[in-house]
């Protein structure tokens, strides 16, 4: 598995990822620079006294140059200090650790659903291009991509929670409360999240697989007398696996974003509702903390995918 080429690639990727992380922290911290006017006034809240504003300014070092502020913040982040919420006073890292598992459960279920349904749909459509099955899958995918996920969530709540009371309408249960209740609460949000992802997976897989299956070497394989099934499994899917990895990365990123909206519909106490509340009230330590956490997770996943590329396509690792 870990050939010398691959180890060298992993090392190179780690070196490449370092500036990405630095850039990401810079962007995250830079968010507060976008606030029009004096940020100390904004942070102090409505009707703050001059003394309070001065106190805020000193507390956050806002009188210092931007790079000094950034360095101070980054130093804190490196030591696990994301600051405290301006609203609740709670340590941001604690809130993130408390709320993140709730969001991750929904996103994980949604990702599993989208792969379990999207991949077979994509293969079905790609192996019968132009057929009725293809038209059906393409239509479903178009619908899934166009469907506002929070609207689907509302329809699901109205039907399965309010009308038939099969699933709970709101709230979440952690895995520690037992697999059953946790999944029961996660079911509707995951389905609402997965709809777009299923469509995306099916659509991308179909288009790349159709391309591979209509290529010259596949024609040669046909001419050599290989069965269509053998061509699909041994050659077609192998060649689209790299595309599929890319799609998984994109879909995961999108699911992390989409869960923010879905959590609002189901009143789920995850990181999504946390960041929306913080954005409305300009609670910057919370905004920065959550955005940074999400970005770091996505960067880590992309690193993993980059390494996996070389497993599926050895040409990528060589130079």
């Amino acid at each position, binding site marked *: 598995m870990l050939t010398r080429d691959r180890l060298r690639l992993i090392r190179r990727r780690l070196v490449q990822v370092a500036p990405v992380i630095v850039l990401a922290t810079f962007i995250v911290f830079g968010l507060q620079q976008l606030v029009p006017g004096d940020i100390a006034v904004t942070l102090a809240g409505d009707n703050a006294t001059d003394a309070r504003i001065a106190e805020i300014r000193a507390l956050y070092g806002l009188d210092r140059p931007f790079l000094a502020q950034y360095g101070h913040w980054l130093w804190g982040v490196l030591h696990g200090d994301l600051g405290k919420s301006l609203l609740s006073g709670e340590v941001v890292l604690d809130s993130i650790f408390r709320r993140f598992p709730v969001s991750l459960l929904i996103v994980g279920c949604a990702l599993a659903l989208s792969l379990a349904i999207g991949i077979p749909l994509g293969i079905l459509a790609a192996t019968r291009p132009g057929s009725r099955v293809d038209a059906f899958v393409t239509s479903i995918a178009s619908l899934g*991509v166009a*469907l506002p996920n929070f609207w689907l969530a509302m329809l699901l709540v109205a039907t399965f929670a309010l009308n038939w009371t099969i699933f709970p309408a709101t709230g979440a249960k952690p895995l520690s409360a037992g697999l059953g209740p946790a999944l029961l609460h996660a079911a509707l949000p995951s389905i609402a999240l997965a709809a777009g992802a299923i469509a995306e997976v099916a659509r991308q897989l179909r288009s790349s697989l159709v391309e591979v299956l209509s290529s010259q070497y596949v024609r040669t394989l046909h001419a050599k007398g290989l069965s269509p099934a053998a061509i699909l499994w041994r050659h077609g899917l192998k060649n689209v696996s790299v595309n599929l990895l890319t799609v998984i990365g994109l879909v995961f990123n999108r699911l992390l974003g989409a869960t923010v909206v879905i959590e609002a519909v189901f009143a789920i106490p995850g990181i999504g509702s946390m960041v929306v509340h913080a*954005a409305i009230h300009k609670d910057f330590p919370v905004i920065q903390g959550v955005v940074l956490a*999400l970005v770091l997770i996505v960067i880590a996943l992309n690193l993993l995918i980059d390494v996996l590329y070389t497993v599926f396509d050895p040409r990528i690792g060589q130079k």
Partner: protein
Amino acid sequence: MRRVLAWLRRDLRAALSVGFLLLLLGLSVAAPVVAPHSPTRQDVNNTLHEPDASHPLGTDDLGRDVLSRLIYGAPATLYASFLAVTVAIVIGVPVGLLAGFLGGWIDDAISRLIDTLLSFPAIVLAIAVTGALGIGLTNGMIAVGIVFSPQLARLVRAQTLIVKQELYVDAARVFGASVGRILWKHVVPNAIQPVIVQVTLLLAVALLAEASLSFLGLGVQPPQPSWGAMLARAYHYMEIAPEQMYAPGIAILLTALAFNALGESLRVALDPTMKRR
């Protein structure tokens, strides 16, 4: 123009989506004339009313006419989608072309920036930027566009890397064609197809992003109508008036479908290898 009409006559799906989008554009422009009522006039004696002759889609929780609010919501929606996607194209396509074609340290630097921006979940960054800039539609959609641009850039870069290795590009280079000419004459036409598909998807995604932001209360502000904001109100009355959520949701769905369908049709129409079949 004649070719466009001929294309629309041949391709029913394209004709339908163009027709729908034109209708939407017309409604956006003519909203004050077409809408039966003011979108903001409240009628507290007539809230959450069933559809009737005076209110074809009923009234909302403040007694405002749902159809009128739906019509007045169209311009906000179109504006938001096109703003975000235009920002994404203007940044993403040239950056991707240059990174893929020039290679070397330029590619490395651009790729790192692309990787970084792509790592931010679009909606979350849009929410964060909107929170910083102040709640509002334009701020949010510019942010969404910036977050979309690396998606396009990465796609264009990947396509460029593939096309760059083709023999005809080497041939052009041997004949002394400039970088600009090679990019424009050889790389762009051969790399553009997936970009068009992606751009269309992005129009729909931008539309959904606007709806999401407005649903969360970060986009269009009350009493201004927007489909997402209408759904946010409908959400609070879901138990007593579930029918409130149908019209705005269907409007969003149809518009997103129209963008997607148009893009798919364009892809077929623009593909040089499919033209003569």
